[in-house]
């Protein structure tokens, strides 16, 4: 049996730990690990930038909180880069499909809370957006 937990949010500044706490129309989803679950088995994750600023940055995930055994777990997600187009031209979009990470085996404590944060490291390429789904088992 598995259960899912999804959060999403904006990453508005580089090198800043940004908690993801919303789920679209659900503004405060519960971050309590469901009873009977003992590990995060899979994660789907995507992060991309609006690319309004020149630079290169990498995005990584932070899983923390009391529920995560073994301390905070950090996992890289994606990276974006951008250079300004010539005057009169438009920049291409940044689009990425979620990565599906399997067989993660991250131990968690059921009925305790965890935090999901995403951070962009390097040079800010503009506001980024991230979505993370934890799949418990």
């Amino acid at each position: 049996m598995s259960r899912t937990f999804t959060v999403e949010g904006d990453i508005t500044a580089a090198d800043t730990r940004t908690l993801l706490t919303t789920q679209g129309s659900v503004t405060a989803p519960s971050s309590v690990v469901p009873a009977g679950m003992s590990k995060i088995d899979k994660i789907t994750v995507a992060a991309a930038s609006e690319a309004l600023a020149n630079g290169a940055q990498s995005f990584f995930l932070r899983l923390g909180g009391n529920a995560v055994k073994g301390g905070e777990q950090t996992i890289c997600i994606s990276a974006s880069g951008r250079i300004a187009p010539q005057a009169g031209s438009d920049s291409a979009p940044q689009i990425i499909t979620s990565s599906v990470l399997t067989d993660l085996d991250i131990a968690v404590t059921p009925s305790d809370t965890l935090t999901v944060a995403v951070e962009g490291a390097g040079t800010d390429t503009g506001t980024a957006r991230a979505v993370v789904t934890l799949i418990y088992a």
Partner: protein
Amino acid sequence: MSRLYRTREGTVSAVDTRTQLATLGSETAPGPLLVPQGVSKLVGVRAVQNFDMSAATSYSALIRLEGPGLQEGPECVGIGAGGVPVATGGNGVNEAVTIPLDIPVIPANEILVFGEMCGTDVGSAEFAVTLIFE
């Protein structure tokens, strides 16, 4: 046995230059990346890089793992390549790649993580590398 995930990132701004990845975003001095207690091997790395496209050329990217935490010595893994035809108007995002490994490690000892851009200088590239221990 559960798995543990440890990440470092950094900017590589010179071509063919071994550059240590020693920060973690808002953590500018996270300290040495030590092999956690209770694990015996590195079962994989997850890595990603992208570049600022400030020079019209191409490059390849690799990571190097070194240090006393690696029982059998240094390792080197290619993680990608890129290029841009003009330095006015590049833009893109790419996902990290997970590479399965089976490398014995020594708990409580350090692993140093390096990124390297190879070939021609493309400006600067941002690297992030996650070590997966079990």
